[in-house]
């Protein structure tokens, strides 16, 4: 095995941690890899960098590769997913003005009840509510559509979901361009720090096990670089396992705060890693266990049912055939390659590649190779269950 330098793109966010840690803590080197990590200021640029071969792998919003399989997202080529980099980790925030009105409704910002928070938000705002998300194809957008639709407020009539780059989210809310946002960390905490917004909910209150970022490659890349893809998967898996240890948090925050990566104070990055969030400019705190998962509950496993859920959501919204979309979307998450790459390691993987999404109220042991695997709670706030065999 010769040493390989692999160009990998990322957007400077806390959930790029597995890539940064893989490189900085030597997990890539164990696989004779150097990750040449290249930051991108926008998801469109990262998509182009991957499509045009300037990078071979990229940190990516989970719905983006799925959208390429449906002929959307403007990549001009299709992407595949080698692993899930992170579960959950977004926050929904509101302007200071809206926060005051929500408080007047008697809502206590308890941070755990998506239904109550949603009703308070919708009755406090003068419709249509304008909400910023980082990209049209993002888990942020999917969760907002799911949540507000289930509460009876369908986009685009009752809700206006629009794209605002994360680094401009705080500006957009203070300029009155948007009333609320759904964004990945550290940008929610930065809006709080700048005194322009309060956090209403963590995204996991809507779906408790939502695949957030994935490791994406061009569709044909793993066929031509099978061994290299496997080395990358293993390096990232080990980085995720290291990140899952609470004692790694401080060092992880330090590593990521470097100018080459996020270029932000470690204190603000540590909030997302620990799940101890400051939700108001006055310093109110909320502890959110499992705010950002990199490893536990086979977090990295790219379930085909996750991709299928995303595909069917996009299809419904755009009037595509759900059955065709389900079949096309499902094959984007390469659980086969993930399984193959981690064979012979300590990773205990699930026996299945499809599961009911939203069907686990509590942590539940499941069939796995070593018999030690438990899946984390996986439920939607409205207790709907997604059955991947139902594509009608």
């Amino acid at each position: 095995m010769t040493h390989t330098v692999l160009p990998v793109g990322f957007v400077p966010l806390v959930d790029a941690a597995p890539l940064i840690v893989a490189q900085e803590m030597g997990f890539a080197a164990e696989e004779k890899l150097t990750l040449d990590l290249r930051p991108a200021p926008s998801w469109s640029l990262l998509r182009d960098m991957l499509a045009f071969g300037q990078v071979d792998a990229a940190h990516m919003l989970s719905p983006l590769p799925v959208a390429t399989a449906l002929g959307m997202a403007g990549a001009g080529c299709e992407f595949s997913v080698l692993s899930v980099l992170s579960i959950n980790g977004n926050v929904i925030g509101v302007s200071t003005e809206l926060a005051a009105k929500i408080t007047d409704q008697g809502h206590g910002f308890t941070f755990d009840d998506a239904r109550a928070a949603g009703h308070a938000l919708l009755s406090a705002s003068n419709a249509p509510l304008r909400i910023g998300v980082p990209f049209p194809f993002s888990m942020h957008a999917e969760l907002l559509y799911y949540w507000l639709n289930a509460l009876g407020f369908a986009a685009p009539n009752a809700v206006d979901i629009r794209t605002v780059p994360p680094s401009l989210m705080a500006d957009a809310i203070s300029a009155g361009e948007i009333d609320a946002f759904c964004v990945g960390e550290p940008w929610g905490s930065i809006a709080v720090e700048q005194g322009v917004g309060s956090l209403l909910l963590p995204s996991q209150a809507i779906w408790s096990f939502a695949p957030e970022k994935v490791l994406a490659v061009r569709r044909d890349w793993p066929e031509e670089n099978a061994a290299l893809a496997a080395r990358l998967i293993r390096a990232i898996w080990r980085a995720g396992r290291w990140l899952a240890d609470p004692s790694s948090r401080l060092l992880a925050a330090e590593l990521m705060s470097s100018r080459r990566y996020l270029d932000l104070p470690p204190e603000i990055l540590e909030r997302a890693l620990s799940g101890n969030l400051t939700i108001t400019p006055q310093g109110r705190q909320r502890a959110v266990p499992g705010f950002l998962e990199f490893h536990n509950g086979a977090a990295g496993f790219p379930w085909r049912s996750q991709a299928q859920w995303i595909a069917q959501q996009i299809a419904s919204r755009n009037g595509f055939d759900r059955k065709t979309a389900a079949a096309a979307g499902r094959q984007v998450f390469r659980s086969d390659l993930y399984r193959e790459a981690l064979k012979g390691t300590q990773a205990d993987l699930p026996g299945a590649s499809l599961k009911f999404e939203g069907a686990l109220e509590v942590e539940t042991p499941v069939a796995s190779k070593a018999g030690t695997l438990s899946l984390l709670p996986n439920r939607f706030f409205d207790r709907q269950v997604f059955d991947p065999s139902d594509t009608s």
Partner: protein
Amino acid sequence: MSNALSIIVVEADRDRARLIVDGLREAGSFDIHVISEPTGLARQIKARAPDVVLIDIENPSRDTLEELALASGPQERPVAMFVDRSPDGLSTAAVEAGVSAYVVDGLQPARLKSVLDAAIARFRVFQRMRTELAETKRALEERKVIDRAKGMIMKARQMSEDDAYALLRKAAMDQNKRVAEVAQSLITSVSLLS
């Protein structure tokens, strides 16, 4: 005039915007408008309904433009021009030069080519300027660091400037580092000890 291609240039820097506009004017008769503020970008573009939007590939507001392009037809139309992978290599040239072009409404490739050729030429100049500026800045900063370290050595060891520099250079060679790095570590150490 109504037949002229309408182009929006999204660029916050006034000098750069002027250079792009001049470049485009040399290439043909276009109806050009510059937007310098990211606030309200989507609204401004919608109101003007241009044929083409040109934006620095590094500009985070590109993601907002993706949404606009989607709204005009998610599947039928190429969102970004270069995603078309035109056979003449124009797309790749645009990406490498650092410009992205959004075609908000359908447009004949031949008409777009003259716009892009002009934009690519200007963006190449910016890219060169950006690299040169970064290099000059780095060189200047390094010179300052080396001068400070030299001064410290001259004072501490009663040496001439040339000797102090020779000592720094030798240390750098011995440690297989750059002179500026050794100078920086010296300054850091001294500041910790004093």
